[in-house]
């Protein structure tokens, strides 16, 4: 393929060179003849004949010629053996066979010729050999032959070598891929630094493999974490059932053990559900649900949901709404985040304490605040509280999965918002700072 293209290009190139050069040479020949012709025609017949003879005598290279023939066809002067037959005496240039004087018997040669009938009826013939052109053609042909053949051979050899080398490299890459597919995820594709396109491709693949390996490690880590976190409660459950079977004396005692066991199990299942929910929030699949969410209305809805529960627990529930505003958000997710915060607040607020929600503004940024009069989370523990399974030390007896805040954190991050915890007068506040998104969150 490459060889054929190379050969065609070379042929084209040589053809072009011939066309250009031959064009130039024949134009020069034509110019020369016209010039000579015109010069001779300006002379008197006597001078013309003398000139023609001089030219014949001077033309050692046997290139150009001139001759004068009497009306009878006999040569009067010059270097042609005879007046060429069929030569029109119209002063125009013609390609015609001529025979030079003194070369009778030799093969006639083709020349560029112009002829004119003079006033006395005789004919002036001026011409020049086109042997140059023929020579040029054959020379270029030879050069083509001599140049093209080795070039073709060389390109064929280079092509074979290059494709052979590529095949070797592709084979190496394939071997590496096969090993990766067998589970050797640390394996990488071979490449030379700063190499060609194939090397760059291999490098990109290696970066991708690195990312995949990292993600797989992360998944494995999460899996290990879940297994570890569930082993505790499940061991407790097993222990409880075992002891219950051995020690329960009455049906009522056994029922109590089973009820307690079911509660333990529900706790573990709730943990799994919460973990899956966090995973779902983190996986960016629900971007489509983003719309403009009115914040005051959202807080009112949560207040309506939780005020009865707070009052039921003897807590004072407050809602303070500043100027209303809209943020681009997944309403269901944002609601879930606020609900989780309020749920925590209601859970952790002390006896006859307060729980409050507020929509505030920090400049142009709306802030959703959920506060309670409880002890909150000590500054040192705040970062950890966002991680999975954190239970603040004084509240570990309160039921819950310990995943509420990490779910809130995942939701907040998903929106590009900021989660902030702070001590406020008489309590603790968690803020969702609805930072204006940098274009990414446009619905």
């Amino acid at each position, binding site marked *: 393929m490459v060889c054929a293209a190379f050969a065609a290009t070379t042929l084209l190139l040589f053809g072009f060179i011939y066309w250009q050069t031959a064009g130039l040479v024949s134009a020069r020949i034509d110019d020369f003849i016209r010039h000579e012709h015109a010069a001779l025609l300006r002379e008197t017949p006597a001078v013309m004949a003398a000139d023609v003879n001089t030219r014949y005598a001077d033309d050692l290279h046997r290139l150009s010629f001139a001759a004068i023939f009497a009306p009878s066809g006999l040569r009067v002067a010059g270097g042609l053996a005879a007046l060429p037959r069929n030569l029109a005496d119209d002063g125009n240039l013609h390609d015609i066979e001529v025979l030079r004087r003194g070369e009778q018997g030799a093969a006639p040669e083709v020349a560029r010729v112009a002829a004119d009938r003079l006033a006395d009826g005789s004919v002036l013939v001026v011409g020049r050999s086109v042997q140059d052109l023929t020579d040029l053609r054959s020379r270029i042909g030879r050069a083509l032959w001599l140049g093209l053949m080795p070039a073709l051979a060389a390109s064929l050899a280079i092509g074979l070598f290059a494709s052979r080398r590529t095949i070797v490299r592709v084979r190496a890459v394939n071997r590496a891929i096969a090993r990766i597919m067998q589970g050797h995820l640390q394996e990488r594709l071979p490449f030379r630094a700063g190499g060609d396109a194939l090397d760059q491709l291999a490098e990109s693949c290696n970066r991708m493999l690195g990312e995949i390996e990292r993600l797989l490690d992360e998944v494995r880590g999460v899996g290990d974490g879940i297994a570890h976190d569930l082993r505790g409660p499940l061991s407790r459950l097993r222990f409880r059932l075992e002891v219950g079977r051995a020690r329960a004396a009455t049906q009522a005692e056994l029922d109590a053990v089973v009820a307690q066991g079911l509660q333990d199990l529900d706790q573990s299942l709730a943990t799994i559900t919460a973990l*899956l929910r966090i995973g779902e929030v983190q996986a960016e699949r*629900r971007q489509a649900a983003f719309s403009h969410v009115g914040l005051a209305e959202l807080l009112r809805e949560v207040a309506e*949901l939780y005020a*009865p529960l707070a009052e039921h627990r003897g807590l004072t529930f407050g809602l303070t709404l500043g100027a209303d505003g809209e943020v681009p958000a997944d309403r*269901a997710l944002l609601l*879930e985040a606020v609900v989780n915060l309020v*749920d925590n607040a209601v859970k952790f607020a002390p006896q006859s304490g307060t729980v409050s929600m507020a929509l505030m503004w920090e400049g142009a940024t709306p802030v959703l605040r959920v506060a309670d009069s409880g002890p909150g989370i000590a500054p040192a523990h705040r970062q950890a509280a966002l991680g999975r399974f954190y239970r603040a030390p004084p509240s570990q007896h309160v039921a819950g999965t310990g995943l509420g805040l990490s779910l809130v954190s995942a939701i907040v991050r998903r929106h590009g918002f900021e989660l902030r915890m702070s001590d406020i007068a008489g309590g603790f506040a968690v803020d969702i700072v609805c930072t204006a998104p940098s274009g990414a969150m446009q619905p």
Partner: protein
Amino acid sequence: MLARPMSYSPSLTDTADVCPLHRHRILLIEDDLGLAQTITGELTHHGYAATHAADGQGALASVQEASYDLLILDRVLPGIDGITLIQNMRAESIQVPVLMISSLGTVDERIAGLKAGGDDYLAKPFDLNELIARVEALLRRPRETRETVLRAGDLVMDLVDRSVRRRGRVIELLPREFKLLEYLMRRPNRLVTRAMLFEEVWNYRFVPHSNLVDVHIGKLRRKIDVTGEAPLIESVTGSGFILRASGRTSP
């Protein structure tokens, strides 16, 4: 729940209120045999005629030749997947209600299940009580009422001027409380679970705090029952609530 007009045995839904032990035919399509045994046992215990199919292929044939009142369909099945199965059935105009059960409990999976033609979606693990309540809800869906007045015992709800009266006494309700009571009154004498209330009254797909619904029901109770009146909303420990309407509720 999708509001699809019921095309099957409308007469049964009327008698269902007074005769809880008629035999509805239910097909369970579930590949986990242990779970299937438990579920069919529980359904039988509640008076249903339960049949079990272990894979989608067999289930489709079974559905085509026998008429069931309800399908309980596992989302993930060997052979035909649950979603595909339900799509095939709907394409063949088999309109039997379908309750999907699945360990794929995420919001997206749930939406996919309902979109494919499921009538309700229950994520595993679930309470057996929850399952039974959902089955009942699907089998005895509320009449597509053109009625403008709902009655439960001496409680009367006017859907046009959105007022509630009990024995002539006007009861003031907040919009959400009205919606909650309406949901209960459309399903008298039936178990309604907390999750069902969260999904249908609040439109939440998560249960934030198990006590929340109880507190709201408590508030509602205090408004509709005054001293001397029989309590209308009954709590079922560990499951949910039943609105007791003595006798027939339709006008």
